[in-house]
């Protein structure tokens, strides 16, 4: 996973609540036993007039210039609710979005973001509305600057929003470490625990 530190980019507003992972990537777009090749299925039902011909829907924000170059997505509460499909994050990342700012997230989706170099930012609805207002004036010029090290969103030159993130999640995104390798370093701890645990629950 590529380390994440700062990002500066165009933000696209998709201000709906409860955007579920079926909408982010419909099941039928998950065509191969692979984590790749999913970007064309991103928001397929909203993005295309005809899913079959891939004719783009000009009304959909991510089809409009300059939002078609967005690196940041602004959205409503409960973003990524529903199915656990990690394909939703793989598709988002492959399409080019690296940060999602929403008042709340589906919990599995949130974890999946951290594991795949996508930064999910929890921010109040009002603050997102102010950012959206700023971006809408001139989305090309009014880019957001996000600094994960310092946990800040910088916009409008002087406005800074601080955002919360778990330290471990922050470190994981910044370092791009492989968690399996890290955990396998603790294998003797796991072995000892397992032996005692099986002693107490021999049927497991």
């Amino acid at each position, binding site marked *: 996973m590529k380390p994440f530190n700062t990002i500066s980019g165009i933000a696209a507003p998709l201000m709906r*609540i409860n955007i579920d992972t079926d909408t982010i990537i419909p099941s039928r777009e998950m065509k*191969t036993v*692979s984590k790749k090749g999913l970007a064309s299925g991103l928001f397929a039902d909203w993005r295309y007039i005809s899913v079959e011909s891939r004719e783009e829907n000009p009304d959909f924000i991510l089809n409009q210039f300059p939002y078609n170059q967005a690196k940041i997505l602004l959205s409503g509460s409960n973003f990524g609710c529903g*199915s656990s499909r990690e394909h939703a994050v793989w598709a988002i990342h492959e399409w080019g979005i690296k940060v999602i700012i929403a008042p709340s997230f589906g*919990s599995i989706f949130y974890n999946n973001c951290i594991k795949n170099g996508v930064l999910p930012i929890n921010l109040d609805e009002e603050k997102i509305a102010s950012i959206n207002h700023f971006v809408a004036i001139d989305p090309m010029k009014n880019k957001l600057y996000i600094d994960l090290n310092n946990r800040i969103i910088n916009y409008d030159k002087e406005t800074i929003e601080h955002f919360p993130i*778990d330290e471990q999640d922050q470190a994981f995104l910044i370092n791009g470490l492989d968690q399996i390798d890290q955990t396998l370093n603790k294998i003797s701890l796991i072995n000892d625990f397992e032996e005692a645990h099986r002693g107490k629950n021999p*049927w*497991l």
Partner: protein
Amino acid sequence: MSQTLFEKIWDQHSIKNLGDGNELIYIDRIFLHERTGSIALKSLEERNIDIRNPNQVFATIDHIVDTFPGRDDTTLMPTGTDFIKSLRASIEGSTINFFDLNNPNQGIVHVVSPEQGIALPGITYICPDSHTCSLGALGTLAWGVGSTECEHALATNTLIKKKPRLMKINIEGELPIGVTSKDIVLHLISQFGSNGATGYAVEFTGSTISALEIEARLTLCNMAVEFGAITGIIAPDKKTIDYLEGKQFSPKGDDFITASEQWRNLKSDPDAKFDKTINLNCSDLTPYVTWGTSPQQAISINGSIPFLDQLTGSSERESMIRALKYMGLSEGENIKDKKIDAAFIGSCTNSRISDLRAAANVLKDKKIAKGVKAICVPGSSQVKAQAEAEGLDKIFTSAGFEWRESGCSMCFFAGGESFGEKQRIISTTNRNFENRQGKSTRTHLASPESVAASAINGKICDAKSLGIKS
């Protein structure tokens, strides 16, 4: 110190505190299906990482496989066969417990798991599937994960997790006849929103929960994720222990006696602290149905859709306007007697034998309305066999239902079979999202009793309104 049920199981599985609130948690059992399990196994193979304890891993085929009678590896979904074959190839030669297509224990993961005693009280359990929370009904600490976390658990038998906030939902009152745990959970989500429990693990308690049979509890916990919860859990009781006795992967003999002793004591201490408590009384509850495109957009089946000005918040109103347009409905409209095109009984929410019995009880000696496409998909091959032994299949088929092989089927559209555009479907499933059951399909979630009654009526209704005691 007083502890909740969740904290007790959590602490029993905590290997090490990693700082910043994160703990290394031991995972006892892992269940995979062909849709996401295939990717997790393939990814580990590509990295040359071994599965740490394959005998603690279970797998089945449910998500993409067709459910037509006589089905095989060939799927209506254009590339579906690849997922089936990939999972099978990854498992071949390992000691993973695999319920392949021809195995009598094949079925939907969350139906097979309790049925086979794979989910047990007090164990930690994950599956790369959001409805893994269903298994909390047995007192299992079970939750859905993505593929990457699943790979971590397969390779290490652990996950790095922060303990979530804890919520108690205490439900009191005797459920009126014909009202089910599906109605409880739809009511709950409609009252508190589909993000009502975001960031929480939920424990369900109270006299209503104690009175529910295990399969009804599975339905309730199944939809904890639609409430935003990380998981739902119910303390094991005598019903749980009786249910698990003799199951294939349950403890046997003296081990069962020892285990049931442990399970009997596995509950929240009386003064245990929760971060939040919700109290509900369900003694006057009526059957529920969704009208919109989120499970929170649910009302009494005899009630009417809210008016826009009843909603606070512009995002809620915008969501409602969009949902009404998508569903072809109007604010203030009665939901009862809306004409339906299809009825679907199945999914990890409502496809167990008790669900099929309840629906068959409504359908007995009746015919479904002309023009309604009705499908029943048993949740597992065992459920199907049991239903056939009881003659339920005959009741379904005589009424005009299709009788299928087990699988997830049309709970979602994966590119294969689907309902037609703009068709109105009453469904025992868990998600009424846009396009979930096919392009532009209009899904109304309800209990098996209400789906069966609506199929007969050709219009949305509950069993009681047809004079049927359910």
